[in-house]
């Protein structure tokens, strides 16, 4: 490995931390300088992520690549070990894309943007850390680190919702989000320690633990069964799994735009990623035992999320519930335990991450201009916000699975995988996609077309910054939709290795 290949993964963690540290010493009134430092760091992160993705050797390379390990705590067998496999590599790329778009959009923040960016970069460091850690301790360390800043980000810079019949103060969303996710993450805590102790390897390194599973006496059926259920609920909650999803719409609605982008775009993916990393890789028998339940819950997610989105008329609630719905495809893909399905699940995480970030970019822009997200009030915006409409419509079309956009490829693969194992549930999943089409088209029709209310006459189109952020998100949406091979080539060896572990 070259010097840069050896250090790229740790740089992905250190760079956002360094950015946060630098910002600590920039005087508060220097708002423009703070913006440029942050956007520059975001750009550097995207470049590093792209580099890591390209450096991943998809044929002939070992399973975990760009590996790096530093001793950290010998007594407990913890090492600062980094490495990415075929599942983590696309997630790293996704984080890079969304982080850059997020830092650009966050430039709209006026109040205390220094503190905002510091917390945002801590969150980004946590997300990267979780994706690239091979040591389960650090996996959990960064996982928690990614959640903690959310409370302040939403609580301070978020927005409260007022409806005719109920109020949702921003603190409510912030507190609910953090409490629910932290509570669920404690299940993961127990799973990680349990797996470590039970493996008898004295190590937290995932490769070493996996090597020990081949030994027939390790990890009894009951142990795997209990641990997988905890893994499923623990990570599933972050991925918006029904019935533990209620924090997600409330949290997204309360969050400021760039936090929503990162949260729905990347952080929720940690949940799906965690189920694959710990559930599938370390507890294969547990997955096989609970696969049907996961499948059913995934299907419920798809339908329930879509139907709930149908009933909402707040733009962010619609997107929030559509996230719940789309994450259902990820669960279905995992539960199908087929190469196609799992590939689709990984691709869906990537595609959904990009399209939701794009949605939130535009919705945030609309909210900043109109101070409302209510589709009963918003209408006919298309004539005033040409670019905004265009981006939103493309994100919507990706969301409902139009061919040529990333969402289509991902959902198609998930459906193929689903039909191979559970045709009935797979069919219900397709029904969910149909409902998605209904609420997305209705939303677009209401908000952007029709007669314009005179009070929106002075609306301005996207600013240059918003336009750039949206374009950054648009490119991969089309690229993956039209030419998914580069991603699939990377995902495939990861998927094959996992399925080999499952004995399939």
């Amino acid at each position, binding site marked *: 490995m070259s010097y840069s290949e050896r250090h790229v993964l740790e740089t992905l963690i250190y760079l956002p931390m360094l950015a946060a540290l630098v910002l600590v010493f920039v005087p508060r009134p220097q708002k423009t300088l703070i913006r440029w430092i942050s956007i520059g760091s975001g750009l550097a992160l995207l470049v590093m992520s792209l580099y890591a993705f390209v450096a991943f050797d998809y044929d002939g390379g070992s399973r975990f690549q760009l590996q790096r390990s530093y*001793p*950290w*705590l*010998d*007594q*407990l067998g913890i090492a600062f070990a980094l490495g990415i496999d075929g599942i983590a590599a696309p997630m790293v790329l996704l984080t890079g894309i969304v982080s850059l778009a997020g830092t650009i959009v966050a430039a709209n923040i006026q109040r205390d943007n220094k503190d905002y960016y510091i917390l945002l970069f801590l969150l980004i460091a946590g997300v990267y850390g979780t994706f690239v850690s091979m040591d389960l*301790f650090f996996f*959990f*360390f*960064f996982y*928690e*680190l990614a959640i*903690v800043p959310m*409370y*302040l980000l939403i*609580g*301070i810079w978020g927005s409260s919702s007022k409806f005719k019949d109920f109020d949702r103060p921003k*603190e409510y969303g*912030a*507190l609910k989000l*953090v*409490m629910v996710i*932290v*509570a669920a993450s*404690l*299940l993961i*805590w*127990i799973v990680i*320690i*349990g797996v*470590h*102790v039970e493996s008898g390897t004295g190590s937290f390194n995932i490769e070493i633990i996996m090597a020990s599973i081949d030994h027939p006496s390790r990890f009894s059926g009951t142990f795997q069964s209990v641990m997988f259920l905890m893994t499923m609920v623990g990570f599933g909650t972050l991925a918006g799994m029904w019935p533990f999803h209620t924090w997600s719409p409330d949290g997204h609605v309360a969050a400021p735009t760039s936090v929503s982008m990162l949260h729905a775009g990347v952080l929720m993916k940690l949940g799906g990623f965690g189920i694959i990393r710990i559930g599938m890789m370390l507890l294969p028998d547990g997955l096989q035992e609970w696969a049907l339940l996961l499948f059913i819950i995934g299907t419920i997610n798809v339908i329930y999320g879509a139907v709930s989105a149908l009933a909402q008329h707040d733009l962010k609630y619609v997107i929030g519930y559509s996230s719940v719905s789309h994450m259902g495809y990820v669960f279905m893909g995992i539960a199908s335990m087929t190469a196609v399905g799992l590939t689709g699940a990984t691709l869906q995480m990537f595609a959904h991450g990009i399209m939701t970030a794009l949605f939130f970019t535009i919705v945030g822009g609309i909210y900043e201009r109109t101070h409302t997200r209510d589709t009963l009030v918003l209408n006919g915006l298309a004539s005033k916000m040409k670019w905004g409409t265009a981006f939103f419509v493309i994100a919507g079309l990706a969301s409902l699975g139009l061919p040529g956009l990333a969402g289509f490829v991902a959902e198609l693969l998930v459906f193929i995988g689903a039909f191979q194992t559970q045709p009935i549930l797979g069919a219900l999943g397709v029904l969910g996609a149909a409902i998605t089409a209904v609420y997305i088209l209705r939303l677009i029709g209401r908000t952007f077309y029709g007669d314009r209310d005179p009070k929106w006459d002075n609306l301005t189109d996207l600013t240059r910054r918003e336009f750039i952020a949206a374009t950054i998100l648009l490119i991969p949406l089309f690229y993956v939709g039209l030419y998914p091979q580069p991603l699939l080539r990377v995902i495939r060896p990861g998927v094959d290795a996992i399925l080999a572990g499952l004995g399939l």
Partner: protein
Amino acid sequence: MNIDFSLLIPEFILAGAGFLVLLVDLILPKAQEHRRNVVTAATAVLGLVVTGVVALTTQMDTSERLYDGLLFIDRYSLLFKVLFVGIGIAVIAMSVDYVAQKMNHPGEYYALILFAVLGATLMAESGELLTAFISIELLSFSLYVLVGLSRGDARTAEASAKYILLGAVSTAIMLYGISQLFGALGTTLFTEMGPLLIGAGAWNLTMITGFVMFLAGLGFKLSMVPFHMWAPDVYEGAPTPITALIATLSKAAAIALLLRFLAEAGAGSGDEWRMPLAMLAAVTMVVGSLSALPQTNIKRLLAYSSITQIGFVLVGLASNSVIAADAVVLHVLGYAFTNLAAFTVVVVIELKLGKESIADFAGLSKRAPVLAMIMTGALFSLAGLPIFAGFLTKFYLFTAAIDQSLEWLVVIAVATSVISLYYYIRVIREMYITETEEGSKLPVPLLLAGLAWVMFAGTIAIGVFPQPFVDAAHAAVTSLTPWAIY
């Protein structure tokens, strides 16, 4: 019999420094309040620094038993000696502004802190029940006086009376327990008790009564449920630096003593006492975290939170293994840094605003951003979130507990962690989210700001670079006899 007095030089220095502080206080003219305060504080800090330096330079490789095992001078006692000296320095630094503003007996105040540190040090060294008892009394009497030292406040009077009365009762119970243990075993030396407790019939009724009563007496010091009732009132009523002293020094000393006792006397018969201790741990964590929910006073909140933290320590003690002992010592270190950071912030708030309810933290992120950040870090550390000490030490404790098949206890522990996060977040919400009209900057005294930074840095250091701390803890733990073989 080893009666090498030179091994006790650090303790002599400490006691001497205590009397020196009293003498300095006597010599300096009464009228110069400020000067007396600063000079006595400086003398006390100097005494502590010399003690620490002498101990570190002369006792690094010492492993001796004085007077046939009444006192152990080993790596374990050295680690706690240094920790206690550090706590003493921190509390004195915290006190200088506080004493100047609120109290009028600087000499007695600082001297008593030194005696408390001496008592705590002897507790960590004791290898025998009566020696342990006398050390506990030295610590307790110093604290009784310190709690009541700022007169004129009804809450202080209540706290002081409660502390002395309940303390006296717990002392009596403990002494009775010791007599039972002596009656049952014919010895009070930890090392001689150990072998006698292994084997059928060793845990007869007399022995168990004695053990329970001894544990109850120590449980009072630890504020272990059900002996915790005094803690919130005393925490609230005592001068805030003394609250910090009780929360860190007295707790850490009791843990040091209990860990040595359980290791030397009980390691071989762990199966007899592990389950009862595990249950006490469970009850302590649950009661501590649930009782904290309705609190509105930050000191009471920290009192209940420290009860929960003691529950976590008991999880480690009930695990009865080397890793668990490492984890306990590490947790105590992290807990000391974290609490001292939090209490430093509370002291500033109390000095500048004259109040210490949680609502008074409103808008602190605007009025003193650094303090708000440090307080947030301390609270996140207490809640067990990265990158702070609490995350690692809890992870360590839970790993040790699951290693010893205490999964159910870990489930309870993590559940209480969630509850505790809720009430820590309430404080953070006040500091960052609640809008206030009062926006003027709070002037933070330099000494207190520096202290808060040091403690904050320590909290992060344990959380991010734990290796040296774990090495120190491990070296200390392996100097205990039963685990020396590992």
